[in-house]
């Protein structure tokens, strides 16, 4: 009767078992793996993608997709760098970068929620367009030399061994988990992701919620872009290029249905841990990025395929028994 719930639980169990297996293998394989420094590193190296994966989860559960996040990350970083170079104090530059994110999000939302275009088309145009705007700001230049506090923000631990980015990730994780699973907004996101028409007939303000989703997505992407700039200490026009696929991969590996209405943040959290540990373990085993990519691609397919095949096998077996 509670088939859907059980399936979800099974998914998270699968991810968890996978995670434990990967951590065990990694610690056997490399003596450097089990150290606090390495754990901070493995988080830190992909922390911006992890942050954006949180809002991407909400967007995909809401039955939409945002392909423009990586370009918004780049745009925000470029806006921050450009305004800083043109004399704005860094805090103002950061605020302007976040504002640029909100503007990008509002633009996406306008076309999707009010004109009614498919989000895939709009954010694909955004993927090209926002990256283009980022280029207009920086052209072929690289801008660095940010104030020390800003670089520290991305590089230095603030709580124990944790950097600001990691702390922000955990805060946002809890925040969005509460939104998605305990607030009216979250309930309505699931509703429009499952059946947008029925939600509209139930008085759900679909346009407004989609606007919320895309603005949140772009805002968090802008924040992640700024944090990325702080971590790298320098900004170029190609910042975060191509991140969108990695982000979507993490969300899908987390058991979120691409068709909307299904999935949760716990699954995505586990999937992020799986990917990070796997990448880190392979990195320490001197396996190159190319191979890492296809191992994770294979894992993504396998994680959905395996339960299906298992089910088929069981059904056949059961059928014989009868």
């Amino acid at each position, binding site marked *: 009767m509670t088939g859907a719930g059980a399936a979800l639980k099974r998914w998270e169990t699968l991810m968890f078992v996978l995670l434990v297996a990967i951590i065990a293998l990694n610690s056997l394989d490399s003596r450097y793996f089990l150290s606090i420094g390495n754990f901070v590193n493995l988080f830190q190296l992909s922390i911006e993608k992890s942050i954006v994966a949180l809002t991407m989860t909400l967007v995909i559960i809401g039955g939409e997709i945002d392909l423009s996040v990586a370009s918004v990350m780049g745009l925000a970083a470029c806006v921050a760098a450009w305004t800083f170079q043109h004399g704005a104090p860094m805090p103002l530059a950061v605020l302007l970068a976040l504002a640029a994110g909100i503007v990008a999000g509002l633009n996406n939302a306008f076309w999707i929620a009010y004109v009614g275009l498919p989000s895939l088309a*709009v954010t694909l145009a*955004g993927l*090209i*367009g926002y990256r283009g705007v980022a280029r*207009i700001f920086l052209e072929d230049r690289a801008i660095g030399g940010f104030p020390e506090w800003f670089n520290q923000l991305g590089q230095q631990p603030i709580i124990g061994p944790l950097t600001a980015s990691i702390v922000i990730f955990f805060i946002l994780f809890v925040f969005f988990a509460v939104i998605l699973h305990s607030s009216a907004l979250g309930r309505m996101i699931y509703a429009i992701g499952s059946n947008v028409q029925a939600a509209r007939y139930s008085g759900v303000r679909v346009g407004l919620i989609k606007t919320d989703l895309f603005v949140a997505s772009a805002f968090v992407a802008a924040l992640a872009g700024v944090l990325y700039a702080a971590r790298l200490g320098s900004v170029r026009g190609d910042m975060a290029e191509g991140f969108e696929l990695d982000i979507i991969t993490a969300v899908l590996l987390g058991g979120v249905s*691409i068709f909307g209405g299904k999935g949760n943040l716990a699954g995505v959290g586990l999937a992020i841990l799986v990917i990070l540990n796997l990448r880190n373990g392979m990195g320490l085993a001197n396996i190159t990025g190319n*191979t890492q990519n296809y191992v994770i*691609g*294979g894992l993504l397919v396998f994680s*959905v395929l395996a339960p299906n095949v298992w089910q088929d096998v069981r059904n056949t077996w059961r059928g014989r028994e009868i």
Partner: protein
Amino acid sequence: MTWLQRHVRPEQIRELSLLLLIVVAIFFFGSLIDGYYTFRTFNRIASSVAIITVVAVGQTLVVLTRNIDLSVGSIVGFTAYFVGTLIASHNSINPFFAVAIAILIGAALGVVNGVLVSWGRVPAVVVTLGTLAIYRGVLVDLSGAKTVTTDSLPQWLIDLPLLNVLPIGSLDIRALFVLALVIVVLFHLGTIYLSFARRFYAIGSNPEAAQLIGLPMKSVVFLAFVICGALSGLGGFMMLARFGNITVEAGRGLELSVVAAVVVGGVNIFGGSGTVTGAMLGAALIGTLEQSLFRLGISEFWLNAVLGLLILLAVASDAIILQRLRALWTRAELKLIVGAPEKRGTQP
């Protein structure tokens, strides 16, 4: 209901609206760029669009069934590279055999996608996001960082993209463009007149119904992926012919251009409606914008921002035109349906 409304559906007029947008774009750029109305401009756009069009035709079939194939860029690169390596080491290879191998390699990769989606019941986005990485990864690992270079290729292959099939005055109609056109025409007719091809539309339009009335869903979806793979393989061959120099990065990111062409071409991303001609026009519109913006003298750094905006406007204006047309048609239809009981009512 006018004759026009009875015999032409808004979905068919959609292609006209795209054509209209292309014409508007051409006039717009023509008025700004000196020497724009030349056959060379046509050739540029035609050759740059040819490869994307062929792959977009395959993508259209997949999208019609309410799926998507994100691995096309990797399939194109994979075939371009390996067929290139093969031809480079066996220069005397029969051209048709080479093309057949390219199509077969592509189809084989499509088979993997198709099996995983149809029988593995894994969502297409998940499968092809995975194989996007896997195919490319295998290519990079197998290549040993070698590059296929033009001078290792036989002359016929190098001449192929320059081959002038239909010289009309100084207008060159080149082989690859003709090939793309032939593919589009074949598949356009095929999707209209072949019974099995109509099932692409049926399945994407209402999967549950397709299941219940017993359409062979799995094999139809599988077939869509195989055809898409095969056409990507052909696209890979075209890429090899056109660019001659093939690195392991060939075709990287092509999936986004192809999806853009399909979406701009009015194929419903949720399946069931759209035509391969639309996809071609979508590719042509984007190609025209890309080529012309550069000619306009827009700085390299402004190009993408403007392109993104124009794509958005194209999609929006297309949607609005279609909406208007649909409203016009629906109103006419409504009268007909509402009028129906009247006929029956008059003979109590």
